[in-house]
Structure formats: structure tokens, C-alpha cells
């Protein structure tokens, strides 16, 4: 396959995953705003920070209000990571790699774009926000479903899934990075209802509040949440799970092509590093430092994959 096609598939699925994550992030932020009557500016600020678009936001707005943040994250075309921008980019990439997609995948991503362009034409009132966010997630899920149900299990499929996994790892890591102080063991002693809200927000931003409760017998501790998000081998959005998936996908490519690259060494290292750690040792090392290093590694891995498989000239 063309290097450009591999790159197009990879980015198409990164952007789709991002659109979904933005919806989750807003959902979690919106919930805090509803359940807490006092000042929510700092929560909206951390939402914008997690989305990685602080600078762009601050250039336009002076304050963090729910209205502005939601509009900026969903509809603003000046925001390179707004839902409408990434949905458009996902479709542009899909058009570029149209020949590598089944009709069903293409139609799903095209319908996503048509529906969202229409839905995001004007500002979203609070009353319609939950339904709309659900719609964003649903459309992304439809594309993924079409991918799983109709695509050949070849390198096309691998590159699409690699894009999803890299974006997933990046997003979960960034959630932890922004909220790390609420996850430190010392936070347990604070134990106020406020912190519980913070923890729940974190879990909601990765659609894991229910699964976490199932697994943890309802008990919620900061280190339990951190362990779940970083090291759990069953939760599909944990750093370990995403990395394990990446290693698996890259191994398929190595086998298929009969050739290992630098990216294979990087992912082996990344998985081994996570395996070596317990949540205890991560806290000992420093949660913040650990997560920052992970984000850097994951970025480097993405860049290495682009290079090894000749996405660009």
C-alpha cells in the first residue's frame, strides 16, 4: 500500500477517536457544572487544558465559562482540535484514502460529517448538549463498527487501528496529567465530597465510571483510579491496554512485511516499562514525571511509525 494511504488511515482514525474524546471531555465538564453550584471556571479550564488547546482558547476568550468552552471545543473552526474540525479532517483523510476503505466505512464517515456539520451549524443550547454529545460518540462508534465488520484484516486495518490506539493512549495520559494532583495518595486524606466529584469526572472522561465500580467493588481510592487508568489490562483506554494493542498491531505489520523497524523497539520498551511498574512504584517515582515521560514516548512512537512506514515524503 502507498505510504500516503497508511498515513491517511492512521490520521483518519486518530481524528475520529479525538472527536469522541472531546465529547467525553465536555460531558464530564458539563456534569461538574451541573452538580456543583459554585465557581466552575477552574474545571472548564482543566477541560480546555486536557484538550490541549489552552493557547488558542486564551487568545479568544478572557474567562472560562461553560458556554464559551463548549462552543470552542465543539464548533470553533479556529480550534484545530474542535469536534467539527477533527470530524472534517477525518473525512478529508477518508476521501484521500477512499480506495482503501470499504463502502460502509466511507459512508459512515461521510454521514458523520454531514450530520455533524448540520448539527453544529449554530451554538448548542444546554438542553440539547447531552443528546448532541451522544450523537458525536455514536457516529465515531459507527465508523469503528463498519471498520471491524467489513475491512480485510490486512495492513489497511492495522494502520487504522494503530491511529486509534495512539490517540487513545495520548488522551488518557493527558487526562491523568491534568488531574494528577487529585490522584495522588495524599488526596485520600482530603476525602471530601469535592474530591469524589473530581475522581468521578476523571472516570467519566474516559467512559469508565461504571466499569471501575464493577471491578473495584464500589470502593473508590485515588491510587485505585490511577492504577486502573494506567495499568489495567482489561480497560481498553488504559495506557497499558493501548500500548499492548499497539505492540500487537505493529507485530502484525512486522510479520506481514517481514521487516522490523525502530518503532518496534520503541513499543517493546513502552510495554516493558509499564509491566515493570506497580502503582506504588509509579507514585514513588512521581506520577507527574511518569505521565509526562509516557506522553513524550507515545508521541515519539507515533513519529517513528510515520517515518518507518513512509507516510510522508
Amino acid at each position, binding site marked *: *500500500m*502507498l*505510504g*500516503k*494511504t*497508511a498515513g491517511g488511515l492512521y490520521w483518519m482514525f486518530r481524528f475520529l477517536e479525538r472527536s469522541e474524546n472531546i465529547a467525553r471531555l465536555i460531558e464530564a465538564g458539563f456534569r461538574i457544572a451541573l452538580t456543583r453550584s459554585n465557581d466552575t471556571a477552574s474545571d472548564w479550564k482543566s477541560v480546555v487544558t486536557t484538550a490541549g488547546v489552552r493557547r488558542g482558547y486564551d487568545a479568544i476568550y478572557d474567562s472560562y465559562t461553560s458556554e464559551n468552552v463548549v462552543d470552542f471545543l465543539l464548533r470553533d473552526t479556529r480550534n484545530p482540535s474542535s469536534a467539527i474540525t477533527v470530524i472534517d479532517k477525518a473525512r*478529508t483523510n477518508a*476521501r*484521500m484514502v*477512499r*480506495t482503501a476503505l470499504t*463502502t460502509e466505512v*466511507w*459512508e459512515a464517515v*461521510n*454521514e458523520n460529517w*454531514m450530520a455533524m456539520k448540520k448539527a453544529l451549524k449554530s451554538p448548542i443550547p444546554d438542553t440539547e448538549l447531552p443528546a448532541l454529545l451522544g450523537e458525536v460518540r455514536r457516529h465515531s462508534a459507527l465508523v469503528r463498527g463498519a471498520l471491524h465488520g467489513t475491512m480485510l484484516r490486512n*495492513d489497511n486495518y492495522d*494502520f487504522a487501528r494503530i491511529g486509534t490506539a495512539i490517540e487513545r493512549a495520548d488522551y488518557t495520559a493527558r487526562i491523568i496529567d491534568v488531574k494528577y494532583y487529585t490522584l495522588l495518595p495524599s488526596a485520600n486524606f482530603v476525602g471530601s465530597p469535592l474530591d469524589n466529584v473530581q475522581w468521578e469526572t476523571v472516570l467519566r472522561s474516559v467512559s469508565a465510571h461504571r466499569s471501575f465500580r464493577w471491578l473495584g467493588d464500589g470502593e473508590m481510592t485515588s491510587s485505585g483510579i490511577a492504577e486502573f487508568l494506567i495499568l489495567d489490562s482489561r480497560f481498553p483506554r488504559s495506557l497499558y491496554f493501548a500500548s499492548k494493542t499497539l505492540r500487537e498491531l505493529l507485530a502484525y*505489520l512486522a510479520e506481514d*512485511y517481514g*521487516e522490523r523497524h525502530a518503532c518496534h523497539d520503541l513499543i517493546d520498551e513502552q510495554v516493558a516499562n509499564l509491566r515493570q511498574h506497580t502503582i506504588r512504584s509509579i507514585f514513588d517515582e512521581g506520577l507527574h514525571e511518569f505521565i509526562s515521560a509516557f506522553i513524550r514516548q507515545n508521541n515519539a512512537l507515533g513519529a517513528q511509525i510515520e517515518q518507518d*512506514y*513512509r507516510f510522508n*515524503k
Partner: protein
Amino acid sequence: MDTKPIHFDEMLAAEGSVRAPYHAYEAWFSKQNPSRLKAKSKDAEAFFRRTGITFNVYGKEAAQERLIPFDLIPRIISSREWTKLAKGIEQRVRAINMFLYDIYHRQEILRAGIIPTDLIAKNDAFLPQMIGLTPPGDVYTHIVGTDIVRTGEDDFYVLEDNARTPSGVSYMLENRETMLQMFPELFSQNRVKPVSDYPKNLRKSLAACAPPNCTGKPTVAILTPGIHNSAYFEHSFLADQMGVELVEGHDLRVVDGHIAMRTTKGHKQIDVLYRRVDDDYLDPLNFRPDSMLGVPGIMDVYRAGNITITNAPGTGIADDKAIYSYIPDIVEFYTGEKAILRNVETYRCAEPDALKYVLDNLAELVVKEVHGSGGYGMLVGPAASKKELADFEQKLRSNPANYIAQPTLSLSTVPIFVKKGLSPRHVDLRPFVLVSPNGIEITPGGLTRVALQEGSLVVNSSQGGGTKDTWVLEE
């Protein structure tokens, strides 16, 4: 229904009777519930949008995507009419290839004084880089879309030859698919010649043009300017249907004297490149140095016989509007036969007498730019305002050689489906022709373009035209 007797309607004769090819269709249509048809028509539009069958419009806000409106009444051609058309097109395409070979070799036709030397030598579409270069099988124009108009029972004219990079074939294929989905019963009541083999035939035809140095199974690819090109949908559609890679200039480079595409496993050689990029942009080393769309050095690879470029560079000299008026002579010169299909009478404004006539009769004529396409920069005299006429007169006077003029033809009409039922609209027809060393193949039918505005003669999709499925009936 308002029938204007001055236009030939292909479905309904003047006295209201239905012409033979439409008998079965009309019997079916008269039994349909109009609201059901309206709903079907909406379905078709949704289908086109969902599948992304769109084209980009230039000049509007940044490359907007538009749908080409689809009309659900088919255009039906009898087997007898088609046989004659196909013969005429084949003759014309054969002659055009012989002309191109000659013009880039000994130029016998210039020596014989049939065409003025200046018309070639001073023409931008003539590529000196092609002189003495012989493409595989002597084929220059592998894919042709001959534009045909009709004015009467047996009166067919060629309007344009489109020998460089004709587009629209994807609409021909998708229109048929849409009709098959919407009205399957029609295809059991009418025996319609299939068109769906086109992608398979195109691939075979392209592979048959592989360069002589290519020994194994030839690798074919389509070169597109990218997703912002107006015909991008078609490029990706054809690549998908043929099962070949769709490449852009930056995917390609010269490796060991061959053109190769950058794949995830390294570079892979290409043998036949169906390019949908204009000559000027094909090779920044040999043509426009600022082009980002082409491949530096591809002309040298071509010259060395290591790649086939389709259509061949320099093919545009044959479908130039100034050359058009000479095509009947060209046909006769190379084939020794009279042209089967007629040309529209054409005034070459470069000639002083012709220019005078054109200026005196501007309001009755259609004036086109010699190098224009897509209906841009064209004047339709009878439809133009006084100011438009005056402005165009200025343009004509300042650069007469840039224009040709033709009488306004009374194009045939085919009904379209409107609120009130059927209403006639003007149409043209673009059949698609494949040329390879193995022969010439014409897909029965082609793309019917229809001017959706009542009375309008402009069928271009960029100017508010639509399309119809085109049926050629079996005998």
C-alpha cells in the same frame, strides 16, 4: 405538456406520439404514481450525497462540494442509432490518433497544406518535447469522451472531441447503478446494454499499453492532482473500481530509471500511469517548473520507454477548438473516407472574414475560447444581455485568435421529471472510448448531460447542468 416544435424531442414526436425507443418506458411511466417518483428522486439525491458522488466547484468559496443533479427519466437510444454513432466515433478517434502520430513525426498533413502550419507551431497545446517520440502501440489518446449533440431524427454532430482528459465516466456508471436500484423492473421490461464493464475494460486497455520494456504483469496507477480537484471523486472511484493505486505527484519519484510509488514497504515500480493532471503540470523539469502536482523527470522516463503516460502528453493539440474545424479534413486525409459524423459549422475568429461575420452576428452565435473548457468564458449569444454582448465584442476584437464561433444549434430535448410531470430540456451526449493496441472500444451510451433550466443550452455541470442515465437498447 408544452412541446416546442422547433426542437427535436427524442421521446415525443410533434403530434404527441411516443417515439419507438421510448414505447416500453412510456407505458411504464404512465402507470407510475408521481408522488412515488418524487420520493425516489429524493432517495437518489440522498444516495449521491451519502456515497460522496460530488464535484468541487472552482471560484466559489474554497472548493465547495456539490452534487450533480440526477434526473430519473432515462435517455434512450435505439440500437440502430447507436450503431451509426459508434461507427462515426470510432472513425474519428482512429483519425485523431493517426493525426497525433503524424503531427509529432513527419507532419505530412502540414506538407499537404490541409492545416496551416502556424496553427500547430504557434499552439500552446503542441508539445515540442513529443516530437519524434512514439508511444507504445502508436496510441496517443487512450481515453476519449466525444461530445455529441443531436438536432433531428438522423442529425448528429460532434461538438468537441475531448481527447486529453475527459471526465464524467463515473457519473455514467453511478447513474446506471442508481437506476438499477430505484427501478429494477425497468430493466426486465427493456433490454438495455450494460455499461458496468467499463472499469474492467479500462484496466485491460491500460495494461495493454504497457511500455515495451515492461516484461511482467504491468502495474497501473491513476495520478490525481488531489482531493481539491473538481473531478477527485471520479479519480478515486476509478482507482477503486479498477483495483489500482490512486497516487499524487508527491507519492512518486524516479528510481533506477523507472517511476516508482512510495509504499509502506519501499518504492514500487509503475508501468502505466493514467494521469488526470494536465500536460503543463506533469513534469516540473520539462514543463511548468512551479508545478507540485507532477513528477520531476517523468518525461525522461517516458522517453526511455520505461513508462506509459495516458493520455500521451501533447494530445491536446487534437482537441483544441481551433483544430476542431479541420477534423473532417483530418478524417479524410488519414482514413480516405468521408467523416460519418458531422462537425458544427465553425468560424475561426483568427480569420478576418470570419471575425467580421461573427461580430456582425454575435447575438445569434455561440462563442468559445479556443482553449477553454467546462463552459467557462463562453458566450451564448441569444441568451446574452446587451452589456454582455458589448463586453464580449471588446474581448473578441482585442484577441480574435483566442475565439471560435458556432451557430446556436437547436439541440434535441429529452423530458425531465418536474412537479407537473414531464418537461423537455436540452441534452448532449458524451460516449466514452477506450483505445489500445488491441483496438477501439466504446461503452454503449455514455453520459447524457441535461440543461435543467428551461430553454437553456448550457449543459455543463459547473453551470447548472444535470445528468441522466443513458440507455442503448439491444436489437
